[in-house]
């Protein structure tokens, strides 16, 4: 067999493979393109245009306005900027509290229900997963009842002698309330006098409002189950021999978890954190069905603000601009935590004992 003939035949085969590859992926590419890529590009155009919601955004009457929509949000000095700043503040606190809590809780639950000795594991797994499969609208309604001024949560708090807050109607910031308990009612002039995105630094530091805290609890309650499932899958994939080896080396349960199990869960941890971050930055249904941004705009989030700007105020360009700023924020956060969780080379200091051990073993 001559070499040139062989290569020719092979390239023929490859050529066919490419064509059928495209053929097989074509339905998905077309679907994604039609319903995802093109709408996203259209929205991008809208965010740079003065389209006002009537007719096609590509008609002759719509013109390009550059960064006008964006600058009104991040430097306009008006109500739009103030609302956007408030929404970002609220959502940042939400993310800051929801993401770590749900990750830790779901990991804890996964480890608990993954133990061989636990009786009725199936029951617990189902129970913990249950909130995740229930519609978020139904849970929001349930939450509104539980956390009403005379609701079950406050009854329970009253039982242990605590006068519960009026959850969904309380716009006061949790951090401000804690500071208030120590007699700090107003912030230093440096904080109250200077503003970022239309709201003062003192307001940025208000913490989530009491109403938002109820949503934070809800998010942790509903999402922990989903992420627990991811962690369980990862835990069951771990081979027992590594843990066994650690056991032989004399590591106790605590050490085995932190030094052996957790590092092996790194890819899953990345997935959970990323999904958590995205979900938390995009919170919408709860706000839409629950509070519509109230009380005192403290549950306003960028996703809801975007909807409100477009659909109720006919400020479509601004609504789209909010959505794209949100997109940039999410991407930035994801890249940041990817860098944080990246596999690093083990430092020389840590490596030293392992490098030296063969020599010390040999000298014996």
């Amino acid at each position, binding site marked *: 067999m001559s070499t040139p003939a062989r290569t020719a035949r092979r390239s023929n085969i490859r050529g066919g493979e490419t064509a059928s590859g495209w053929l097989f992926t074509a339905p998905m590419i077309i679907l994604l393109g039609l319903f995802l890529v093109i709408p996203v590009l259209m929205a991008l155009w809208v965010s740079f245009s003065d389209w006002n919601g009537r007719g096609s955004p590509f008609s002759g009457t719509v013109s390009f306005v550059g960064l006008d929509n964006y600058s009104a949000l991040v430097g306009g000095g008006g109500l739009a900027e103030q609302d956007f700043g408030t929404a970002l503040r609220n959502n940042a606190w939400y993310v800051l509290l929801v993401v770590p809590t749900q990750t830790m809780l779901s990991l804890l639950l996964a480890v608990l229900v993954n133990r061989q000795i636990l009786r009725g594991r199936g029951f617990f797994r189902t129970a913990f997963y249950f909130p995740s499969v229930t519609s978020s609208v139904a849970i929001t309604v349930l939450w509104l009842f539980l956390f009403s001024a005379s609701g079950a949560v406050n009854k329970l708090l009253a039982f242990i002698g605590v006068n519960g807050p009026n959850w969904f109607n309380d716009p006061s910031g949790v951090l401000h309330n804690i500071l208030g308990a120590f007699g700090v009612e107003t912030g230093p002039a440096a904080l109250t006098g200077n503003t970022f995105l239309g709201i003062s630094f003192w307001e940025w530091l208000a913490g989530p409002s009491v109403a938002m805290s109820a949503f934070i609890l809800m998010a942790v309650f509903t999402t922990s189950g989903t992420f627990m499932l991811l962690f369980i899958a990862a835990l069951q994939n771990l081979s027992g021999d590594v843990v066994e080896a650690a056991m032989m080396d004399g590591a106790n349960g605590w050490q085995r978890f932190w030094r052996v199990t957790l590092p092996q869960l790194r890819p899953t941890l990345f997935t959970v954190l990323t999904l958590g971050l995205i979900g938390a930055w995009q919170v919408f249904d709860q706000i839409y069905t629950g509070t519509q*941004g109230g009380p005192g705009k403290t549950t306003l989030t960028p996703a809801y603000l975007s909807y409100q700007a477009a659909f109720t105020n006919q400020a479509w360009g601004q609504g789209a601009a909010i959505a794209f700023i949100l997109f940039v924020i999410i991407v930035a956060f994801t890249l940041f935590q990817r860098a944080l969780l990246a596999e690093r080379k083990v430092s020389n200091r840590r490596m030293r004992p392992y490098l030296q051990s063969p020599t010390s073993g040999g000298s014996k």
Partner: protein
Amino acid sequence: MQRRNSRWLIGTGLAVAGALTLSACGSGSGFGGDTADSGEELTSDSTQGLNILIGSSGDAETASVNAAVAAWSETSGTDAKVSVASDLNQQLAQGFAAQKPADVFYLSTDALAGYASNGSLLAYGDDLANKDDFYPSLVSSFTYEGDFYCAPKDFSTLGLIINDDLWAQAGLTDADIPTTWDELAAVSKTLTTDSQVGLALGGEYARLGAFMAQAGGSLMSEDNTEVTANSAENVAGLEYAQTLLNDGVMSYASEIGAGWGGEAFGKQLSAMTIEGNWITGAMKSDFPDVNYTVAELPAGPEGQGTLQFTNCWGIAADSPNQAGALELVEQLTSKDAQLTFSEEFGPMPSIKSAAEDWKSANPTLVAFLDGADYAKGVPNVQGAADVTSDLNAQLESLKTGDAQAILDSVQKNLEALLK
């Protein structure tokens, strides 16, 4: 690696090109529609049926509107179909963007400016045969930049709702019904007990604004051209409300565990509330055992004042049968139709000629209609809804807040809208 990158580039390039081609197709339809100015002839393609989109308060309203539209359809020979929107704003917006909007629809004062300014609405007000019969303050609520856009469908005003039994228990009689601010403060105090507060209301501009009106103030001038939010009158109105709150004789409904004033009132958490006509429906269905009286709101330093709320029948500029739509609206706002609507689901007729009939049919609710003489509308400039929601957010902490500072921020925000 190099090769993979270039493949990606080609792929992305193709996707972008595809998107542009498709969007170019999309723009074809965009050139078709042109703005219908009030001066132009109305379109009258009667072969196409009318679509009517309403945001219904319940089955009674849906059935009532359906019957009225069906009756018109029968006599006019034009098909007409009523749909109930689950989210009116969203469905309207989608219709306008697709240039296939409903022909006739409910439109709130909030939404008017947005749709009027982008040319979605037909300004047909001056073509109405019964134009002069509407209350002038309602007409000005639906006038945007000098054009009377749409016919007020009906309206409501705020009144003082009093719980008869709690009133009698406190030793009060009909003669004690408050007519001034001082009297209101006094009876609220008398009615406040350990288990109830004298007066409860929603902590928002749509209720507290009545106090500003009684003090002679309003957020904007009648024709919406001048901002008067931080006037001394408005400050006085808010400070009066602040005093009642701090004296513990008035509470926000949310503070006492109710969703709105009507709920607080029905649950007897408060002896009085300030609400509009819609409270009668809620009382009938949710709290049938509570006896109540509707009185006019007390007069402030500048006389009586209340707020009015209204919707109109919008007609789309893109409707192929504007003439038919106009005819339908004239029918729906006629005296007979409005009195039937009122009987079936409660709002007050928006025309003066129906007032006497309405009063004799609803003797206990006369106070609401009497309010029409001095009621003020809410601002309807584009973006005003955002400003009032920001004001509402600030009013939630009115108790400890500074009325002047709150109104100053409203002044600034409203002025920004007029620029």
